[in-house]
Structures are given as structure tokens and as C-alpha cells.
């Protein structure tokens, strides 16, 4: 029996000769990461257990991105603790505001994630890096403290589910819609403990930014990881960001899967996840007369340059509805600068929107766009749980950037075609 790409990567990070799904392994970590929310717990735990020296100061990333620029004194103190730790242990990959970006957009952009890597992060959306053909998974702070001390993590080798996407995507449909459709189909625990392997002709021609969006939301189906076999599109991306050697692994033709799902995507419309679960998904045409108070375009799911371009294409020459706040947040400083060069910022500002510094901010109800009681937002983020973006009686609808932009103009959830044919 052959191996899946996930099994191949995991095997290479152990001293074993063979592994199989369900087995517990201790695996060596190529890169571990934490943010201003999760790092403080990890630091406290590691130091409480006698940390004198980290396993490798070049394999630890610390990215204060959640409540930054610091939203209050407690948040500032947490960021300060992370900064002091980075200094004390000479952590190479620490990013202060101004060089910081949302972790899952920033690290690939800096060339720190390579195909075939094993990446562990104290953040649930660490699964994003599967888009580059790496194994990556989210854990908690104590696991991270364990990695600081030993460089290793315990993992149960996951079974894989293969998702085959067939057909040709319609205009305004992308990675976000594919993953929302998938979560709707299998449910919020449909892939619990499993690796989600995305393949098929749609994926083979899908741009990198869309691949990141898909793998990013594997966790919303309970997935341990999402992964896409690296190909020419992956190679083009990594050649732009690094000259490091790369390892392209592929699943064997006789690899074993716990399930195989096939979707014909040719007639797929843009999708919207209604409150209060990411699986509560409907095509945008079925979301009628849903007025909104706020539209958020950003996050580790959809704050990349192609997301901003898609939104700007809709917004250009239009005005944001007078009842709506449009908040656009580039995921990193490099994306910010690119948006500036391309004139995208001007488009958003002239239309009556705001353009923010990179932050996770509103996605998790931190700052930069909190909802009042009874308010409703459409957002390109990843979770629409009760109270996620503010008051427990507010609502979040999840969509792709073009839908969020069209909705900002119409003042209600709208298909991009209603604004731009």
C-alpha cells in the first residue's frame, strides 16, 4: 500500500521506517509559530518547566497580529512579553508592528514555509500552509512550549479524505466558495482528526491565493490539515519568495483514503455561510433581502492581494451604501504596499471605505470593527459563531471578497454580477 502526501511528509520527520494512519508519532518540527494571544501561555509554560535555551532560534516564529496595533493595556502587556522573550532567546523570526502581517499570510510571503515542511502553530488556521504542499496543523500553547523545549510534537498520523473538484469555475467563484461548499457538504466535524487533500482539474488551475483560502478553512470542517500537491503554480510562487531547495511530494496512486468526495463545480455560484456555523451555506442568489451594517475584507483567509484586487474591481466607480461601513484590511505590509502601488487604496477610500494596517482585529471580535447589538456584517473571514465579531446578538455572514464588496455597495447581500456584470 502506498502513502498519501501527508503520510510521506510525516514519515520524513520521524526516525521510523514506516508509518500508518492512527499511529502516534513524535515528529521533528521545521517551523513553529505563535501570536500575541497564544505565545504568552507557551512562554509561561516553557519557562515554568525550566526552559534555558530554545531548541533552535531559527525555527521559531513570533507574530503579534491578533490585538495589534495594541488595542488596550492588557494586549500591550502580552505583546511586550512576546517581544521580551524574542530578545532573551534571540528568536530570529519575530515581527514588530510595521514589519508584521497576519501570520498565515506573512510566513509564506517571507519564504519561511517550503513544500514538504512540517509546520506547527499555536493558531487553528495554521492549516493554511498545506496550500504549499507542507503538512501544517494548529495546536495549543502547551504543545508549543513542548516544541520550544524539544523541537518535537506528538501527532496521531491522520487518515486522509480526498476531495476532487471537477469542471470549470464561473466568474466570481474561487477558493473561498469551493471550501464553503465543501464544509456545507461534510459539516463542521466532517473531517475531524483527518487530513483534507484537495485535488482535481479545478485545483490544478487554481491560483495560489485561492489555494491558501481553501486550506485555511480546513479547520472549519474539523480538519487536522488541508493539503494540495505542489505543482507548477506552487513552484512559481516559491521561486518569487526564496531560492531555498524544495521538495515536491505526491500521493501514491495506491494510497489509502478514508473517503473520496467528488464535486462538479461548473454550476457553482458564490457561496455564503449564514449565522452561526460555517457549514450553514447557501448560494448567494438565495440570500435575499439581507441588509448589512458592515463589510469586512481581510483576514488570514482573504486578505491577500488578489482578494483586494477582486474587491476593488467591484468597488471602482461606486459608492459604499450610506448605511454601511466598509473595512478593508490587507494581510501584510507587502500586500499593503502593493495595493498602494496599484491604486487600490484610492479606490476603496474614494468609495467611502476605510483601509487599515494589517491585523486580525475584527475577525475574532478584537478591535477595528466590532458589531453592536442587532448589527449584521458580511465578512471574508472564516468564522460566524455567535458573537464572533462583537455583541452576542450580532450576526456574521461569510463570503468571498467580490460578494462582500458588492454587498457593501448595495447595502444588502448581493451577487457581484449585480454591480459588475
Amino acid at each position: 500500500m502506498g502513502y498519501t502526501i501527508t503520510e510521506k511528509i510525516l514519515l520524513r520527520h520521524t526516525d521510523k521506517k514506516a508509518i500508518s494512519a492512527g499511529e502516534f508519532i513524535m515528529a521533528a518540527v521545521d517551523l513553529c509559530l505563535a501570536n500575541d494571544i497564544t505565545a504568552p501561555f507557551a512562554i509561561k509554560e516553557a519557562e515554568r518547566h525550566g526552559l534555558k535555551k530554545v531548541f533552535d532560534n531559527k525555527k521559531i516564529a513570533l507574530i503579534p497580529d491578533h490585538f495589534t496595533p495594541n488595542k488596550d493595556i492588557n494586549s500591550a502587556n502580552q505583546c511586550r512579553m512576546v517581544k521580551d522573550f524574542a530578545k532573551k532567546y534571540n528568536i530570529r523570526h519575530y515581527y514588530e508592528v510595521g514589519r508584521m502581517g497576519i501570520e498565515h499570510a506573512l510566513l509564506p510571503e517571507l519564504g519561511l514555509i517550503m513544500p514538504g515542511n512540517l509546520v506547527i502553530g499555536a493558531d487553528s488556521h495554521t492549516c493554511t500552509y498545506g496550500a504549499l504542499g507542507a503538512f501544517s496543523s494548529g495546536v495549543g500553547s502547551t504543545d508549543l512550549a513542548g516544541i520550544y523545549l524539544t523541537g518535537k510534537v506528538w501527532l496521531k498520523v491522520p487518515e486522509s479524505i480526498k476531495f476532487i473538484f471537477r469542471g470549470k469555475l464561473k466568474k466570481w467563484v474561487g477558493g473561498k466558495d469551493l471550501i464553503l461548499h465543501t464544509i456545507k457538504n461534510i459539516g463542521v466535524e466532517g473531517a475531524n482528526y483527518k487530513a483534507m487533500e484537495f485535488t482535481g482539474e479545478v485545483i490544478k488551475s487554481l491560483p495560489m491565493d485561492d489555494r491558501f483560502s481553501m486550506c485555511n478553512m480546513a479547520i472549519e470542517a474539523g480538519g487536522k490539515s488541508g493539503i494540495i500537491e505542489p505543482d507548477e503554480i506552487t513552484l512559481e510562487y516559491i521561486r518569487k519568495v526564496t531560492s531555498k531547495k524544495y521538495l515536491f511530494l505526491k500521493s501514491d496512486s495506491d494510497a489509502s483514503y478514508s473517503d473520496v468526495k467528488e464535486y462538479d463545480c461548473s454550476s457553482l455560484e458564490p457561496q455564503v455561510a449564514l449565522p452561526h456555523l460555517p457549514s450553514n451555506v447557501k448560494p448567494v442568489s438565495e440570500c435575499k433581502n439581507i441588509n448589512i451594517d458592515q463589510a469586512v475584507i481581510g483576514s488570514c483567509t482573504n486578505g491577500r492581494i488578489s482578494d483586494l484586487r477582486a474587491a476593488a474591481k467591484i468597488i471602482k466607480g461606486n459608492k459604499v451604501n450610506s448605511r454601511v461601513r466598509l473595512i478593508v484590511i490587507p494581510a501584510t505590509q507587502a500586500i499593503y504596499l502593493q495595493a498602494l502601488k496599484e491604486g487600490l487604496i484610492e479606490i476603496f477610500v474614494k468609495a467611502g471605505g476605510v483601509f487599515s494596517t494589517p491585523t486580525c482585529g475584527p475577525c475574532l471580535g478584537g478591535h477595528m470593527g466590532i458589531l453592536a447589538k442587532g448589527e449584521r456584517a458580511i465578512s471574508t473571514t472564516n468564522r460566524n459563531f455567535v458573537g464572533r465579531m462583537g455583541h452576542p446578538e450580532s450576526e456574521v455572514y461569510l463570503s468571498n471578497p467580490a460578494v462582500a464588496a458588492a454587498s457593501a455597495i448595495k447595502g444588502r447581500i448581493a451577487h457581484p454580477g449585480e454591480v459588475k456584470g
Partner: protein
Amino acid sequence: MIKGMAHIFKDNVNTDDIIAAKYLNTTDPAILGSHCMETLDPTFVKRVKPGDIVVAGKNFGCGSSREHAPVALKGCGIRCVIAKSFARIFFRNSINTGLLILESKDAPDDISEGDELEIELEKGRIRNITKGRVYIAAAFPKFMQEIVNAGGLLNYLKKE
């Protein structure tokens, strides 16, 4: 032996329900505990007595990786969570931090709010004193049992 009163919750209780993100600017277990389950039930924390047990449906702890979730549950006095299933990261965070968790397909449907429960962890036996019934929870894999026995992940790693 663990003994406490049952507090019932539904399917898909997420980590934002357990502890909302607005409270993640602290790592203090007492502060986190004082806001536990606030969105779902603002009276919950006031009703919990030390040693009590949360009983929930499937996919408990889905969502973010915040370890603040098991810490908040412990912080408000919850000793153990019984659920039909657990989301992956919450499961490992609980094992790593010493919040007791038990998986049982039938117990959550049978237990009512306020039932008195008694748990023998080694045997995975849940006794419902109020109703006079016994349920058996799924056994932990040996590897995880070793982490639990060591008193959490970091103690386990030190022993290795």
C-alpha cells in the same frame, strides 16, 4: 473519584462560546474562568460548584486553538467534560493541560441538567446517581493515558 453536578450543553460548543476572544488579553485562569460560557449562558459561572461536570453533544470545543478554553473551564471550577465527541485541538489541549475529558455516545443524551454524577476515570465509568444508571466512556489510547498519568505534556516530555 470525581463527583459533581451536570451542566448540559448542545452540539458544536465552540471556543468562542467557552471563552470569548475579547477576554484573550489575559492568561489569568481566575479572570478567564469568570467569563466561561458567558455568551451561551450568563448565569453558568454563578451556578458552577468546584468539581462540577459539563455534559455536551458532539464536536465540543470546535474553532480556535486557544488554550484559554480548557483553562477557563478549569478556572470556573469544572473538573471534567463529557461529550459525544471533541474537536481535535480542544482534545489535545485538554490532555496537555489536565482538564479531564470523556467521550461517550450515549451518556450525553441520558443525563439531565443538575444530575449528580460520579466518575471512575481509570475504568471510564460514569455513574448517574440521580437516575441510577451507568455509562462507559471510550478508553484513551495508551499514548495519551501516559501523558495524563505524567500530569500533562511537559512533565511527560521531561520523563522521556
